[in-house]
C-alpha cells in the first residue's frame, strides 16, 4: 500500500445518500434502494454478543450503527455493594478473553490508594501471569483473523496451544479461565516445581506454530488479497478517536504502556514494540503476530531473570475490615487490545465508592467501527471486527 493513499483516504460517497445535518447519512428505506440488515447478536462472524445495524446498497455498506448492552451485568453497581476483597472474584469476570488484566489493575488501584508496596517476587509473578494471559489471547486472536475469512485451520492449531497454556494456568492458580491469582498486596502462590521447564516446552511449540502460521496465513495469496488495503485507519484518526494498542501501532504510532509508563518490572525487560505504517487489516494482523513473538520472548526473559524465591505478599490489614483511605486513582496497563484501565474512587469506607473500567473497545467497537464500515463490503465486516479486536463485555461491563 502506498503511503499517500492512507493520508488521502476518504470514503467515496458518490453513489451514497446525502449526509444530513447531524453528520449521519439520510437513508430513505422506503425508496427500496437500501436494505437494513441486523448483523448479530446471533451471528457466527460477530465477536462476542453485540449487533450491528447495517444499511446496505447491494454488497456495500452505506450506514452502520453498533448496538451493545447484551452483556451488561452492572459490575460497577455490584462492586459498590461488595467489600474490597469481595470484588476480586467478580472483577476478573469483566473481560472473559483476558481475565488477568482487570484483576491486576484492580489490585494495583487498591494498592495505590492504600499505599502498599508489592514485594519484588510478587511483581515478577504478576508480570509472568499477565504475559501468559496475553499469550493465550493472541493464540486465539491471531489465527482468528484468518478464521473470519474462512481459514479455520490456523484456529484449530492455535486453540490447541492455548489449551496447553490454560493447563499451566490451572497448575499455577487452580482455574482455567478465571484465576483470581492476583490479590491486593501480592499473589496467591509461588510457581510449582518444574513449571519453568513445562513452560519452555510449550513456548517451543509456539515458536514452531508461528513459523507454520506464517506460511499458512501471512504468505497466502488469497489471504493477502482479502486483507491488504481493506479497513485502513488514517493516521489522523488515532488521536481523534482514541485508538490505542496494536491498532495504533499498525498506524505507525509507537504507543505501548509497558514501554511508555513502565509498570511492574517491565522496565527491566528488554524489548521493542513493533510498528508499521500500512494500517490495514493485514498490517494489524502482522502487528499482532509480532506481539505474539514479543510475548514469547518476554516470558523467556521473565523466567530467566526471575528470582527463585521471595516474599510474595505484602502485609495488609484484615481484609474483611479493610478501610481504604479516601482518594481516587486511575491505573492502566497494556492488554492485548491496548490501554485497559480502572478509575477507582474510595470514600474511606469498606466499600469502593465508584469503579469505572476503561476498555479499548469503547472507542474501537463503536466510533471507529462505525466509521470503518461505511463503504466497506459486507464480506469484510467480521474481518474488520476481529482486526479491531472488539470485545463487547468491556464496553457495557
Amino acid at each position, binding site marked *: 500500500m502506498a503511503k499517500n493513499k492512507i493520508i488521502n483516504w476518504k470514503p467515496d460517497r458518490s453513489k451514497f445518500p446525502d449526509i444530513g445535518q*447531524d*453528520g449521519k447519512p439520510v437513508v430513505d428505506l422506503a425508496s427500496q434502494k437500501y436494505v437494513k440488515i441486523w448483523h448479530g447478536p446471533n451471528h457466527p462472524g460477530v465477536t462476542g454478543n453485540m449487533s450491528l445495524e447495517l444499511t446496505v446498497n447491494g454488497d456495500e455498506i452505506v450506514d452502520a450503527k453498533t448496538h*451493545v*448492552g447484551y452483556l*451488561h451485568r*452492572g459490575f*460497577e*453497581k*455490584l462492586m*459498590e*455493594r461488595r*467489600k474490597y*476483597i*469481595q470484588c476480586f472474584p467478580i472483577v476478573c469476570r469483566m473481560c472473559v478473553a483476558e481475565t488477568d488484566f482487570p484483576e491486576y489493575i484492580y489490585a494495583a488501584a487498591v494498592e*495505590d490508594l492504600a499505599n502498599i508496596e508489592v514485594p519484588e517476587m510478587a511483581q515478577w509473578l504478576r508480570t509472568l501471569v499477565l504475559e501468559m494471559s496475553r499469550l493465550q489471547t493472541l493464540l486465539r486472536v491471531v489465527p482468528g483473523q484468518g478464521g473470519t475469512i474462512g481459514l479455520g485451520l490456523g484456529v484449530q492449531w492455535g486453540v490447541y496451544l492455548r489449551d496447553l497454556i490454560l493447563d499451566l494456568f490451572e497448575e499455577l492458580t487452580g482455574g482455567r479461565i478465571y484465576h483470581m491469582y492476583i490479590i491486593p498486596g501480592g499473589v496467591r502462590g509461588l510457581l510449582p516445581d518444574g513449571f519453568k521447564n513445562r513452560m519452555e516446552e510449550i513456548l517451543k511449540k509456539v515458536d514452531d506454530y508461528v513459523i507454520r502460521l506464517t506460511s499458512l496465513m501471512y504468505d497466502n495469496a488469497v489471504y493477502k488479497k482479502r486483507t491488504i488495503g481493506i479497513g485502513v485507519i488514517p493516521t489522523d484518526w488515532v*488521536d*481523534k*478517536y*482514541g485508538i*490505542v494498542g496494536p491498532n495504533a501501532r499498525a498506524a505507525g*504510532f509507537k*504507543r505501548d504502556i509497558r514501554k*511508555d*509508563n513502565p509498570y511492574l518490572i517491565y522496565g527491566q525487560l528488554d524489548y521493542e514494540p513493533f510498528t508499521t505504517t500500512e494500517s490495514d487489516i493485514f498490517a494489524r494482523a502482522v502487528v499482532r503476530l509480532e506481539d505474539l513473538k514479543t510475548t514469547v520472548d518476554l516470558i523467556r526473559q521473565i523466567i530467566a531473570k526471575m528470582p527463585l524465591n521471595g516474599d510474595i505478599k505484602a502485609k495488609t490489614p484484615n481484609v*474483611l*475490615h479493610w478501610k481504604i483511605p479516601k*482518594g*481516587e*486513582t*486511575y491505573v*492502566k496497563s497494556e492488554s492485548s487490545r491496548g*490501554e485497559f*484501565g480502572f*478509575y477507582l*474512587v474510595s470514600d474511606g469506607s469498606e466499600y469502593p*465508592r*465508584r469503579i*469505572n473500567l*476503561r476498555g479499548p473497545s*469503547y*472507542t474501537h467497537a*463503536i*466510533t471507529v467501527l462505525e466509521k470503518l464500515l461505511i463503504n466497506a463490503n459486507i464480506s469484510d465486516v467480521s474481518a474488520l471486527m476481529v482486526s479491531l479486536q472488539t470485545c463487547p463485555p468491556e464496553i*457495557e461491563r
Partner: protein
Amino acid sequence: MKELLQRLEYRFDVSDIVQKRENQTFLTIDKKHTISLITHLRDIENFSHFVLLTAVDWIEDNLFQLTYILHNPEVNIDIAIRTMISRDNPEMDSAHHLWEQVATYQRELKEMFGINFPGSPGVNDSFILEGWDDIPPYRRDFDTKKYTEETYFPRPGRQTNDPAEYMKNKLYPNG
C-alpha cells in the same frame, strides 16, 4: 509536570491539586470553565488522547462528580479533571466536538446516571439498557438487590452471609 500545573494555575481557577504519582494529577475546576480547560489542554498542551469520562455520585453532598481523564502521549502524563455538578438538575456542557467518542460516554452517563448533555448526538437513545423505566441504575439511591428480588424469580435456598460475621463465628464459635 510542575511547570504545566503552574501554567494551568495561572490561567485557570483550578483547586484541589493531588499528584498521586509523578505522571498522574487530579485537579478540580468549576463547571463553567471545564470545557475551556479541556480544550486548552487538548490544543495547547498536547493532551490529545481522551481516556475516559465518568461520574461519581456523592449523594450525601447532593452532587455528581464528573471526571475527565486526558493523556499526553508525547510525555506520557495523565491529567484528571474533576468537576462538581448539582444532583437536582444534572446538566453539563457537551464535549463531543473535541473528540467524537465522548458522545458515547455522554450517552452512557445519561442512561446510567441521568446526567443530561444537551446537544450531544444521540444522547437520548438507549445505549445499554432496553426499556428501563426505573431511576437510573448507577445512582446510589437505586437498590439493585431489592429490584432483583422484586423482578426476577430468585431460587429459594440461597444463603447470604456477611463475611466478617461468618468468619468470626467460624473461627471463634464461643464468642
